[in-house]
């Protein structure tokens, strides 16, 4: 057990090192949310009510991008390249490998939380988060769930050429429906019903409560429950369907 944890830690360290060596990935993770924040900040400058919705929304979107999108794409790439097959031939415990890879995505999300919280305070009039514990709980639950769903989704993607299309066909509708850019409660009823099912809506609800409204954790147990259910489903399919080899070969 201790050994498996040590190997997971080593895998995480290697993933971090590789992440920083790939400037495109680093750009997408950290510059893109800032770019979105400043664009929307410029558009809705002075409209605090809208900014209060958009800043947590963009944090939720960024978290999904660095976990769900990045893992779905990376796992597909590594599977096609044969890196996963090579790892599968070593004594590396699969759980250590997946933990190391997921921890890498979680690290990126943690940096994003810091970036968005600071930008919210300094540039967008949000002040410091009202409930740090709630922020931490929803950030961790959201990131873990979206990471598991990303790994699970990689099983659906047939090959790397198709990966961007598959990922975006999920990501783009989800960020719009889940209320990254507007208040879900003001959406048409059918969209609101879809949004109620999606995990990102509840992640953003929780982040918004922690950062803006100050409604405590006890008021958002329902949100947390939906996220946890998605997380368990994601983890189940991530592990169960995990394929170490390309189906093309």
């Amino acid at each position, binding site marked *: 057990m201790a050994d498996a944890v040590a190997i997971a830690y080593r895998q995480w360290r290697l993933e971090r090192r*590789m992440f920083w060596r790939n400037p495109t990935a680093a750009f997408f993770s950290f510059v893109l949310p800032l770019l979105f924040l400043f664009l929307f900040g410029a558009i809705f400058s002075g409209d605090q009510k809208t900014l209060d919705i958009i800043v947590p929304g963009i944090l939720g979107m960024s978290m999904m991008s660095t976990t769900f999108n990045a893992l779905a794409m990376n796992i597909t790439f590594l599977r096609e*390249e044969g890196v996963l097959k090579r790892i599968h031939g*070593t004594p590396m415990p699969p759980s250590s490998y997946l933990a190391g890879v997921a921890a890498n995505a979680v690290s990126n999300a943690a940096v994003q939380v810091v970036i968005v919280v600071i930008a919210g305070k300094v540039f967008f009039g949000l002040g410091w988060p009202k409930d740090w514990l709630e922020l931490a709980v929803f950030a961790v639950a959201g990131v873990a769930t979206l990471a598991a769903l990303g790994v699970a989704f990689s099983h659906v993607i047939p090959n790397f050429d198709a990966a961007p299309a598959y990922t975006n066909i999920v990501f783009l509708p989800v960020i719009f429906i889940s209320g990254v850019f507007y208040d879900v409660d003001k959406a048409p009823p059918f969209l609101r019903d879809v949004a109620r099912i999606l995990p990102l809506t509840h992640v953003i609800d929780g982040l918004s409560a922690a950062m803006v409204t100050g409604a405590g954790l006890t008021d958002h147990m329902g949100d947390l429950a939906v996220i946890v259910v998605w997380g368990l489903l994601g983890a189940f399919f991530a592990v169960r369907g995990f394929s170490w080899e390309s189906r093309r070969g």
Partner: protein
Amino acid sequence: MSASAPAILVRDLHKSYGEFEAVRGIDFDVATGEVFGLLGPNGAGKTTTVEILEGYRSRTGGIVSVLGHDPGQRSRALRERVGIVLQSTGMYRHVTPREAVAHFARIYPRSRDVEEVISIVGLQEKADTYVRKLSGGQQRRLDLALALIGDPELIFLDEPTTGFDPAARRNAWEVIRSLQELGKTILLTTHYLDEAQALCDRVAIVKDGRIVAEGAPGELGEASTRYRVTWRSTDGESHAREVEDPTALLHQLTSAALARGEPLQDLSVTRPSLEDIYLELTAETPEEERARG
């Protein structure tokens, strides 16, 4: 496990993909410390057989034992004692060989020294270059380094020198021979006959999912009952004839030459080479060629 138990034991191995039978009853043993080669054309079932032994594929039937384990169980204890070089596997692009080898070293309980393994495969000068900037041959050397870092007892090499230039092949052969001297057991697949001849203690020729011949590379030819006699007549024309017993033919040739008072040029009597045997055994019958279109 006793010392005399084979490192690999395969009995009546079968593997089907749907209707297609890729492996149709293969038997062989590989003794500890032996270099065993699976030879055969593409699609003969070599890689399927090896991947079953490596634990990547399940088998449809038969018995398989690798270092006393059933590879289908995928036990970690077995994978700690085995090194695998696959035909085509990628590696992380943004790491250096030194980092990659050091990372893999931590996965194994008794790993070798990182610098030592890098120098065994001859990657010292590229040890700090990103993998994506390595040539194909250098990446293959890294594959070998990653297979050796855990100090395995048994090494699988699936077409280890495909795509190498002649000098790189010789170097790879030296590395494989040095592994043999260390007492490692090696199972390799190849479609280069000179490679099998140079490295293997024993080879098995695989065709259509079956072993059609097995033995030491030199003995496979000897087992044949035919001799090949070649000579050149006075008009400079080359002749070749295959006979079961060359005595009569030789007598005829030499007495004719003596009678003419001319030397018999370029006379040779040979057993079929491994290559002849291989080509004969793996040749497609006209029906097969037609079926393949």
